[in-house]
């Protein structure tokens, strides 16, 4: 029985130790300048410089948002493939996979540039929702998903056939 209690104490002690480590009191100023140690352990977002982004991602931004600069770029670590999140100064958020292929373009307060949207989808929206703008487009393995300014969401398969509708 004593053995079990000891193991329990060891577990709790190690847990306490972890917490104590978290709240050590290094001065704030130095913390802000130093690279946090825990990036790798916890999947905290890591800031990325413009020149650290995959070339494909930079190309995508230059081609489709020629007037916008990058406000903030970060790398979101995940066990199976992380992603780059780029926020442009106009409030557009673009998500790239780790190879620089775009997965999502979100212009919540603007409009997704026509150059990003596949022609068939653009035509479809123009036909059916002439007055609405496309504010978000997601590119997935088996198709596209778009969101219109009236909050309607449309799902297309690979051959740009509408397969889902959500408003």
């Amino acid at each position: 029985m004593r053995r079990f209690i000891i193991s329990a104490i060891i577990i709790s002690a190690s847990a306490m130790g972890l917490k104590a480590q978290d709240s050590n009191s290094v001065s704030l100023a130095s913390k802000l300048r130093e690279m946090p140690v825990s990036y790798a352990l916890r999947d905290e977002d890591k800031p990325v410089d413009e020149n650290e982004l995959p070339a494909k991602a930079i190309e995508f931004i230059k081609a489709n948002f020629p007037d916008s600069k990058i406000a903030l770029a970060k790398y979101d670590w995940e066990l199976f493939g992380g992603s780059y999140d780029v926020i442009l100064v106009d409030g557009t958020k673009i998500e790239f996979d780790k190879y620089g292929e775009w997965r999502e373009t979100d212009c919540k307060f603007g409009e997704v540039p026509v150059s990003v949207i596949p022609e068939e989808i653009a035509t479809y929206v123009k036909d059916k929702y002439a007055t609405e703008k496309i504010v978000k487009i997601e590119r997935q393995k088996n198709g596209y998903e778009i969101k219109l300014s009236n909050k309607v969401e449309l799902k297309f398969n690979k051959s740009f056939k509408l397969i889902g509708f959500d408003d």
Partner: protein
Amino acid sequence: MKYTRLKSKVLKSTGIAFAVIMSIWAALFYLIIVEEISDEVDDSLEDYSEMIIIRALAGEELPHIDNGSNNKYYIRPITEKDALQRHKIVYLDEMYFDEEDDDYKSKDNIFFKDGEPARTLITIFRDRDGQYHELIISTPTFERDDLLVTVLYSTIILFIILLLTIILVNALVFRKSMSPLYKLLDWLNDYRPGEKNNPLINDTNIEEFDILNKTVEKSINRQEELFEHQREFIGNASHEIQTPLAICKNRLEILTEDENLTEQSLEQIARIQQSLEYIIKLNRSLLFLTKIENRQFTESHTIDVDNLVDNLISDYSEIFEHKALAINKVFNKTITIEANDVLINSLIGNVLRNAFIHSNAGGKLDITIADKYLSVSNSAADGELNEETIFERFSNNNKKEGSTGLGLAIVKAICDYYGYSIKYEYKHGNHIFKIFFA
């Protein structure tokens, strides 16, 4: 060599192994949960930060400071120099206070009180004019901390319960499956060769135990057979030797009457006669033992033990007068038994004669009759005897002259015959034999 029981050995080993393995498992489990919960907090901070940055950049209205969510934020411009020196994304496990910023300080009231546990995310971003901004978002973590404490205690309690359950299940399974072994051991422990033993009833569907049962039974039966043969052989041999021995004795007696013999020859014959006497005595004892074991003394009489003891003592004190023993008789009770007088005579006679023979000259002899038992105590000339073997045949290595080495074996056989028990003790330099007539 110290022995542990198989059960405690198995339980101890599995218990330790499981305790170690499960400790590691529980510790890892707890750490993973801690990380998962912390990540959850970070994710919500990141989402909130992103939302505010996008709204700020798009020139949209920012959420009200007191927007009902627990998150608090503060956004302020910083110089390019500062921005380039610093890390763009910083996580802190505390509140963030900038004492030099008056505007920031004035907003203290919107942040949590100092010292409250919190998680802070500081993000630096650039707007379309190239101006850098710093967004500070804090969220209180006491909920997270409460959760972690709960998880910690749950993990520990579940760990202990699980471990105890495993050990308990182990113990039950062990007891259930090992019961035939213990039954067999108990039976073997009770087994007495040459006596009436209970048959071994130990049904089991475990192959190993079945083999063990059968092997033990076979070997016991074989032993029993050998024992029986040996007993028969001793009985027959003693019986057959009797007549030739008597003839030898007679012939020697006739020989001594021959007047032509020299003094020397007569002396030799006397020695042969002496040895022959011993062999005859030994043979008689062996025959007597066999008869007891074969239960040939069926006649029964009422015997007064006190009288018998008294008579025997007076007989022996005459024989051993030269030893000058101090004899002390204490008869508190009278004991009357129903038994064969030859056997009881031999039983008590042997015990008393032993006491007379083995006590030192000028020693002490205490004979006590109390409720249901007779105790014979004599001051020892030599040290303690081996309690385990004294009742076996020829067990005493340093035999006194005239002793056959069968006396105590006969005593034990008679006691077994009537269901009496006999105990040997060595106390304060005295050998004590106690016979319980019950």
